[in-house]
């Protein structure tokens, strides 16, 4: 049904060509490039220092709240796209839900920015 001459077929072909082409670069590099290995070369790069700490480093994160806001906004913008594509079939008064949806989400941004500012991030 979706195979054959349609767009999804060419999409898949493009994807496969891209992946195969990228991997082929590795094969060419494997044939052409030298392999002179040493333990010091494979040490984790840390500007010449011997890296301290264990295998995997964990770091504290800032701005985690903004990532959560991003998740919420992603959903909202997809709802807005459903409305936006049929812009001409709604009167401006019928668009009230979309506008309310947009306005409702401004205070959380404001509060997050304020919290972030109050602690000097």
């Amino acid at each position, binding site marked *: 049904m979706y195979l054959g001459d349609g767009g999804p077929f060419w999409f898949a072909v493009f994807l496969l060509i891209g992946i195969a082409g990228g991997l082929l670069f590795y094969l060419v590099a494997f044939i*052409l490039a030298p392999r002179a290995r040493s333990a010091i070369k494979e040490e984790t790069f840390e500007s010449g220092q011997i890296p301290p700490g264990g295998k995997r480093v964990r770091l504290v994160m800032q701005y985690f709240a903004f990532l959560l806001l991003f998740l919420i906004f992603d959903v909202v913008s997809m709802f807005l796209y459903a409305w936006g594509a049929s812009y001409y079939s709604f009167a401006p008064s019928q668009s009230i839900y979309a506008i309310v949806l947009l306005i409702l989400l401004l205070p959380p941004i404001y509060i997050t920015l304020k919290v972030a500012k109050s602690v000097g991030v």
Partner: protein
Amino acid sequence: MQELDKDYASSFVKYGIVAVIILLALVLYLIYPYLLALLQLLFSNPSAILNTTLFKLLIFPGLIYVSIVALIAEWVERKLVARIQVRVGPFYVGGWEGLLQPIADLFKLITKEIIIPKHADKNIFILSPVLAFIVGALPIIVIPYSPTYVIWDYQFGLLLYFAILAFYPLVVLLAAWSSNNKYSFIGGLRALYQQASYEVPLFLAALPAVMLAGSFSLTAIASAQAKVWFILFAPLSAIVFFAGMMAELERIPFDMPEADSELVSGWTTEYSGIAWGLFQFGAYVKLLAYSGFFVTIFLGGWQGPAILPPLFWSLLKVSIVVLILLSVRGFFPRIRIDQLVRAGWGRLIPICILNIVIIALLQPYIVSILR
């Protein structure tokens, strides 16, 4: 010092064989009838080749065109930034003004050793450059260069474009995590914050184009601009989209993820040889994809005076946008990550919302102009 990993080379060979198998399967099973048809056309009716999808996919708006433009963009960028900073830039390779420098770079990168650092997660480390390249290159499949030069004229092209680019933060995060390096991981987290903060402005800034054209198809959006370009209805959104575009591309005022004076090379620190080259190549392809998208939704796509063919106008506009994007690098210093996040959420999103509300309220006037 611990023992070296014995099966170092095996992953390259393994993935190389996978590549060969994929290519053979493609040629033998999927596209060989189309290739045969193309060859027949070559002898009977050569001008009809330009309209076959396989030609479009492989050559003109597709892979070869994109690769050549990515190589040229590298040369233009180095030359342009050098001229802005009163340097010469690449000069020796290739006779005139170092024109063949990108190809020399490609050969240099491909003959360099790929170092896999200790404790790196080998599979993800090797696969993420390929994924970054393909995620950067796939969006060009929906971008129209003229009414006929589009690989897939999809009804939901604009959404597909955003859906493909949504994979990019994932790939960056995996690349940063798999190299097991502090610089890489800090760079990857910065990239994530940056992409997350500027993806929402991008979504909201592209919404006016969808509203005004009443369709998600990029060809429909471009042909709806026959009378007026959408940048006149949504100038604020266009500015926001341009800023968000630079942030997503990690171009210079927003290049904290790669800040080379702080983080060595950001999330690509541990990558060497062609693995790094694939990241860079993918970045330039992505630059081209974003420029084409910007031109399509705000600058009228192929629309222009009918003296010259539509293809000329779209290529001209794309080149101008690419040149502006490249030359910005010479003018601005890097901004801080907190300034970036603050600007993204505090300024750009309210501006976008303002523009959307204006367009929603002015609907009767817009209908009288556009329809």
